[in-house]
């Protein structure tokens, strides 16, 4: 069973000619089939965790370990991590000029699966996945994220999640900027992948709204670069009612 183990992870970033520590010792284990929600106020380091796991060059790992099924993730390049089974659905997916969605998806699937998918079944697979996400077929001919609305970008991320079938999926604020309809479509997509039981999900969010659609097994409160409280789904209800105030005032500097 696939397991992602994060131990005492410390991460810094260079900003304004100074080195700033963003993650200050994160411990978390995500197993296949589990869904963990990471919730926290803005600036607590949630997205840094997501991008550090994916290997974004902006972030420097200064301490700790990340293992995926015992393999050292931090030693891997960005593409190796993806091929090892890590997937990051980005909060702000970038435009890639000149590359169509269909070409992108096929190239990506070929890289992840280690061989080009058979064209006939692949076309069908993509078409059906797009239908489930209420995406128009013409979408495949557009350039990656170019001119996409906020909702289209997120659907496109979840489309990739469905097609690439990672071991561990990190969803970085996939709910932000979505209206209720888009949120439901996107959440259904995530749930389809979760229901296979094959993926461990790390759901990073600022709001509890998405948790009405995607029920987490564990909820972690993130503040000032580390997990300050962990619990079950009921912790989300508490956050819904009380907000992050208790964590940003007391728990942080302690």
């Amino acid at each position, binding site marked *: 069973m696939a397991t992602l183990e994060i131990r005492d992870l410390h991460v810094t970033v260079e900003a304004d000619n100074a080195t700033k520590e963003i993650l200050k010792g994160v411990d978390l284990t995500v197993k296949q089939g589990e869904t963990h929600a990471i919730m926290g106020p803005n600036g607590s380091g949630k997205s840094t965790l997501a991008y550090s796991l994916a290997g974004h060059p902006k972030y420097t790992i200064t301490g700790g370990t990340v293992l995926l099924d015992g393999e050292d993730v931090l030693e891997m390049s960005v593409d190796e991590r993806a091929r090892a089974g890590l*997937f990051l659905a980005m909060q702000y997916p970038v*435009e890639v000029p000149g*590359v169509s969605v269909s070409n*992108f998806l096929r190239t990506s699937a070929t890289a*992840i699966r280690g061989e080009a998918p058979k064209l006939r079944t692949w076309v069908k697979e993509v078409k059906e996945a797009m239908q489930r996400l209420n995406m128009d077929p013409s979408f495949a001919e557009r350039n990656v994220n*170019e001119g996409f609305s906020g909702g289209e970008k997120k659907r496109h991320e979840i489309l*990739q999640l469905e097609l690439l079938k990672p071991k561990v999926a990190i969803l970085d604020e996939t709910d932000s900027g979505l209206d209720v309809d888009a949120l439901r479509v996107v959440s259904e997509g995530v749930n389809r992948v979760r229901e296979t039981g094959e993926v461990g999900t790390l759901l990073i969010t600022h709001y509890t709204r998405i948790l009405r659609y995607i029920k987490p097994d564990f909820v972690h409160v993130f503040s000032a670069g580390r997990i300050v409280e962990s619990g079950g789904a009921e912790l989300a209800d508490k956050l819904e009612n009380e907000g992050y105030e208790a964590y940003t005032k007391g728990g942080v500097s302690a």
Partner: protein
Amino acid sequence: MAEAQNIPVGSTTAGQIAVAAESTVATRMSAPPSFDVADFPVPHGREEEWRFTPLERLRGLHDGTAAATGDGLKVDVQAPEGVTVETVGRDDARLGKAGTPVDRVAAQAYSAFEKAGVITVPKETVLTEPIRIAVHGEGGTAFAHQVIELGAFAEAVVVIDHTGDAVLAANVDYILGDGAKLTVVSVQDWDDKAVHVAQHNALVGRDASFKSVVVTFGGDVVRLHPRVQYAGTGGEAELFGLYFTDAGQHQEHRLLVDHNTPHCKSNVVYKGALQGEGAHAVWIGDVLIEAKAEGTDTYEMNRNLVLTDGARVDSVPNLEIETGEIVGAGHASATGRFDDEQLFYLMARGIPAEEARRLVVRGFFAELVQQIGLDDIEERLLEKIDEELEASV
């Protein structure tokens, strides 16, 4: 790619639509067109037409110090049956009919060539195989003139390949009879040291179609000047260009479409990718719609993709309209860059860095390559683009 977004440091994207009583395209040249090199002052580099060009790398083509070296250039022509291939002297009446040199190097070429090539496709002859002209530089300096003339309703594809090392100044004339169809593919696949400066003059007959595909990969300095004029109404010109500018290379494409005749069309699409320190691409797109050219339909576009730091693009579209009675006129220029965030996004989907770059560049050129409409050329171009990418990483 969004218009004029993501403009990298060191690039300029300027454009203008001028409504003028007198052509600024003509007036901003330092001298009127002439076949005689003596009519042009030696450029010093600040002239409008020379300001982007590294004169010191032209190996004397611009100041009269370059001298032809007997056998520095080999030209091999393969033509299907029915085509006449001749080598003629300077006094041949068919030379210089499609246009007059507009700058000093073109005039130098016209003043200095000894023999010219003339290829003629007789009227109503429709070729099924291309005419192939292989120009191979063997380290020498050469001045050349080539004429390709199609009679009325003739149809031909001409592929001109430039390889090897040379210092070459040339004029190429394309003369299209009424209703003729000519596609010319000019590939500049020179070695790294070559210098190539040429003016291409197309004279498009009534209801004739001219398609020019300019592909520049190699050379130290390549400066090409494709120009189009119309000899009758209903003419169409499509000018496509593709360049891949590597570290230290200067590749300059200056175009002029002179709508001097009513009811003609033109469409210009040039796309370039740049990579490496000192890579410099220049694109000047001049379109002039003269007062008498009612019913003109024209569009020009330049796109650049900057793959690394240290590369520079100067892209200047210029549309000049002297009559309002036209079907359409437009232009666009944009320079974007393939940046670290795009690379991260693709790699985060399992795609290795090199393949990610290849994906982006092939995608960028694909649309243009498809418009060329010649299968074997398309295939070759895509292969060549891959080669360029592999050589660089």
